[in-house]
Structure formats: C-alpha cells, structure tokens
C-alpha cells in the first residue's frame, strides 16, 4: 500500500518561527510565590514568530494547537489562545492530538489550511508542561498508551520500554553493541552544545553515557529523553503571500503519511525494528519530491532514544539496514558528515517536551534552510527531511523541506 501524499497545486511554506529553550518551567500550584502559565509563554512566542515572518496578523485565519498535557490547567486551549491574541478566524481554530506526532499534526494541519486556500497565514502552536509531575506519576498516565490497556498495561509496560525491546532485538539481529548505538547520544550532545534552544549542552563522553544508571535495559539515563517543558510556534503561509514579504522562507516540497494498522504490538508477528511505516512514508516523500536520500542535506527525526535514531535513519534510507549505529559512530551523521542528523541535539539533548517536540524539529530545519543556524549551520543546506515516526505505534509522517532564499 502506498503512503498518502501531497496533491494540490497551492504550496505552503514556513515564514516564521520561535521557541523557548527546552527546560524545566512547570510550577506546582500552591508552591512558591509565582506560577508559570502556558498562555503567557505562548502568546509572546506568537508575536515573536509573526515579527520573524513580517506577516500581517489580519492574514491569520487558522490556528492549530497541539493539545497540551492534561496537567495544563487551562482547557479548550485553542479558542482560549485565539481570544488571548484577539484573532478571529474563518479557517479553523482547533487542538490536535496524535501520540508523539501531536505537534507534527499541528504543523501538518496548518499547512493543509494554507494549501486548501482557507488562509494566507496559519499558526501551528505547541506547548508541553509536565516537569512538576514526577516521572512515576507521569507514567501512571503514559502506561495506558502502551499496547492494549487491559491486556498489556497490567504487566507494567511503559512507552519507553518498547524502545528497549527494539534495542535488544536490534543488538541481537545485527550484532551491534550498546556502545555503538550509544555513540548517537555523544554526537547529539555535541550538536546540542551549539544550540541555544537545547536543554543539555555540556559535552559527554561515550564512557559517561555507558556508565549512567539503567532506565529500561539496555538503555541508560543518557540514552533516553530527559523530561522537559517547552513551547514553540511556526508561522506557515502560502508561497504567493511569502513572496510579498521579502524574507527567506522554507517550502514544503513533499509530505507523506503511513500507518500500518497495528498499535504497538501486532498479534501477527512483524519485523519490529524495520519501522516499515517510516520506510514507506519516506519512500513516498522522496518520490513526490523527485529526490533520493542522498540529496537530503540535513534531517531531524522524532527519535526519543538513541536506538530510534539508528532505526529511523535506516528506514529513511540514509544508511543500510543494520548500519545506522556504525554510521553514527563513524561520524557520518555528525555536523560536517555525510548526512547530519539531529543538528538540534535531538530528543536526548535538545530535549523532548513531547507534545511540542516535532515543532522544535521544524524550527531546527527552518533555521538550517534559512541559513541562520549559527555554529551548527550545515553549509549550503538546500533540502531537509523532517520525519515524525512513532516507533512501534507503526505510523510515520514525513515532510521534505526546501530552502527558498
């Protein structure tokens, strides 16, 4: 089955972005003199991103918000933000939710609004606040997202345990060591050291990564995503409108999606570490964009753990099956390498405020393709690949982005 892809003539582009550095922002009501609230943070970002875009606020007719975590006190967040910003809209005002893809869906739906001609400019917003809730309490909710809540959750599966299961299988099948895979964490920390939006910027060695306490074997603390809060905004527009602004923009050249019709564990045994959905979606996007993996200059993957970046880089066609870890340890996926992956620092070091994470990945590629990534700039970056894949939830969404300067 082929992945669904772009088939309208009107093109959507990214014209503005803004985000707060990923960090711990969330406060506990009743503790301390002051609280941090989501709408104050996000409203500032909208104004910053619109300034970056030089766009006219009256052109914004659609707002798509990644649904915040259940810990966000303000509910019906999209109409609330439209009110907070005094933005009447004739396209859509809505929240979206879809596993780790949530903020990618906000981006994708904002693009749809533009491509359908409902608006010249659309806002994709995401905010994720969760760090005032302990990991053990947070997992009381997230465990209900693993497999079947009555047949799997009672055994104690957690979302991240699935990546550990993938890694055990990967090491077994491909005879690859934990250290080879862990080199991804070292590489990404180096990238993060150059990213002002990153949560962890101090360099780490492979020995330090391996020495961390186990979280889900064989993955230790530095091989899994830290918990973090974040907020991000992307302003997307029609290419016709973008051309009137005189700013560099990023064109969405191709878009694809695929779900295998299997949620985390498939009673019909499949190859769990092939990430078929990611491979299928990537192939469709390349065909649509009329490019091959070798044409891509920089890639941001939704890869919560080291092993996921390895599997996703294979599924995206950047390396051979079983070769993803070696490519990382050999420097092929580092800045200056053959195909730089996660120049932002990735989810392990840039940080993973889950329901906003894909927008941070959009922002990294937009910065790279607008030539303003500073010390981590990939030279002459023309094409970027954005892959939001959901591991064993067996879905993937791919956007191929193109510099227009």
């Amino acid at each position, binding site marked *: 089955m082929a992945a669904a892809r772009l088939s309208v003539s009107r093109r959507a582009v990214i014209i503005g972005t803004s985000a707060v550095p990923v960090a711990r922002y969330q406060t506990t009501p009743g503790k301390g003199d002051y609280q941090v609230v989501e709408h104050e943070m996000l409203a500032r970002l909208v104004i910053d991103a619109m300034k970056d875009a030089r766009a006219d606020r009256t052109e914004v007719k659609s707002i798509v918000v990644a649904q915040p975590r259940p810990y966000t006190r303000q509910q019906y967040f999209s109409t609330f933000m439209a009110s907070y910003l005094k933005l009447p809209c004739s396209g859509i005002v809505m929240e979206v939710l879809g596993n780790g893809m949530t903020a990618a869906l906000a981006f994708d739906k904002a693009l749809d609004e533009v491509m359908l001609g409902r608006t010249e400019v659309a806002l994709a917003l995401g905010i994720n606040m969760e760090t005032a809730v302990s990991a053990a309490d947070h997992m009381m909710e997230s465990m209900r997202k693993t497999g079947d809540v009555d*047949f799997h959750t009672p*055994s104690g599966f957690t979302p991240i345990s699935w990546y550990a299961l993938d890694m055990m299988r990967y090491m077994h099948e491909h005879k690859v060591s934990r250290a080879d895979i862990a080199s991804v964490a070292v590489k990404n920390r180096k990238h993060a050291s150059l990213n002002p939006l990153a949560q962890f910027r101090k360099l780490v060695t492979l020995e330090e990564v391996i020495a961390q306490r*186990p*979280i889900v074997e064989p993955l230790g603390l530095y091989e899994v995503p830290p918990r973090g809060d974040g907020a991000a905004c992307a302003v997307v527009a029609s290419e016709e409108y973008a051309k009137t602004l005189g700013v560099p923009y990023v064109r969405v050249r191709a878009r694809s999606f695929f779900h295998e019709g299997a949620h985390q564990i498939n009673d019909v045994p499949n190859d769990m570490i092939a990430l078929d959905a990611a491979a299928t979606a990537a192939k469709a996007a390349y065909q649509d964009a009329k490019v091959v993996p070798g044409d891509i200059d920089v890639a941001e993957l939704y890869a919560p753990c080291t092993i996921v970046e390895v599997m996703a880089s294979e599924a995206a066609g950047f390396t051979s099956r079983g070769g993803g870890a070696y490519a990382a340890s050999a420097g092929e996926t580092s800045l200056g390498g053959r195909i730089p992956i996660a120049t932002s620092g990735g989810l392990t070091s840039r940080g993973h405020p889950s329901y906003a994470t894909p927008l941070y990945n959009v922002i990294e590629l937009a910065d790279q393709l607008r030539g303003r990534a500073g010390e981590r700039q990939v030279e002459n970056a023309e094409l970027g690949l954005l892959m939001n894949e959901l591991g064993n939830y067996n879905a993937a969404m791919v956007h191929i982005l193109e510099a227009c300067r």
Partner: protein
Amino acid sequence: MTMTIVPVAHARRYPPRVTEFTAPFWLNLTQGLFSTTRCRSCHRLSFPPKPICPHCWKDEIDWEVLPTLGSLYSWTRIHAGPAVFAGDLPYVVGIIDLEIGIRLGCSLVEQREPWLCDIKMELVTLSFADGPLLGARPVSAIATH
C-alpha cells in the same frame, strides 16, 4: 495444554477490566489455560480476543484453548516504572512469539540466567491475590516459587 500456575503474594498492580465478552479468557487463565478467539469464516486467530474478526470483519468467532510454547522475540528489564509498580522494580517484560503464530507481550518470571532473544519460552498463569495475569518463562526453568 495446561500452563504452570505461578503464585504471586500480592494483588495485581493495575488490574485489567473484564468485559462480558472477555470473561472466558480470564476464567480460562485462572485454570491455567490460554485461550483466544478464532474467526469461523477465515479461521484466523486474533489476540487479544475480539468479538469481531479484525482480518475479515465477520462477527462470528469461537473461543479456542491453545498450546503455549514459543520463543522470546525481545525483552527488557524496567528500572523506572509507573507509581503503582514501584514495589516491583526492577521487573522484566518481554515479547513472545507463540508457535501458533501469535505475538504477545507479558511479564517474564525473573530468572538467574541472562535473558537472550530467541530462547524457548512457555506461557504461565501468574496467580495474584486478586486474579490472574499472563506471564512467560523459559521452557527449561525450574520452578523456584
């Protein structure tokens, strides 16, 4: 086809909901039997048991008690878990490929030997104070409970 029943002293940390439809699965499991649904039309099994066939969308199914040998597709030991599982940390879970062609995930009964992918496994009934859950252990395991 009867499974070993492994007693567990405490209650289940996060008990499953039993529906009128899934009740036979849990009743069978209590008695050391693994069962699921097979489609009367296309004859394919599905797990967890379903009142419809996900493969052909017919709605006539039969319950079937099945053999429980298989192999370990993958495993992990969880050191950071949800609050209700704090008393069990660390604990082991795995993915079992049954010889009858079904893949499922469940708790593994911890052993002294290192876990390895592809070792032979058998399903067991974990008999908690308040009811059963599915578990698995290596075929060679000597009952130490």
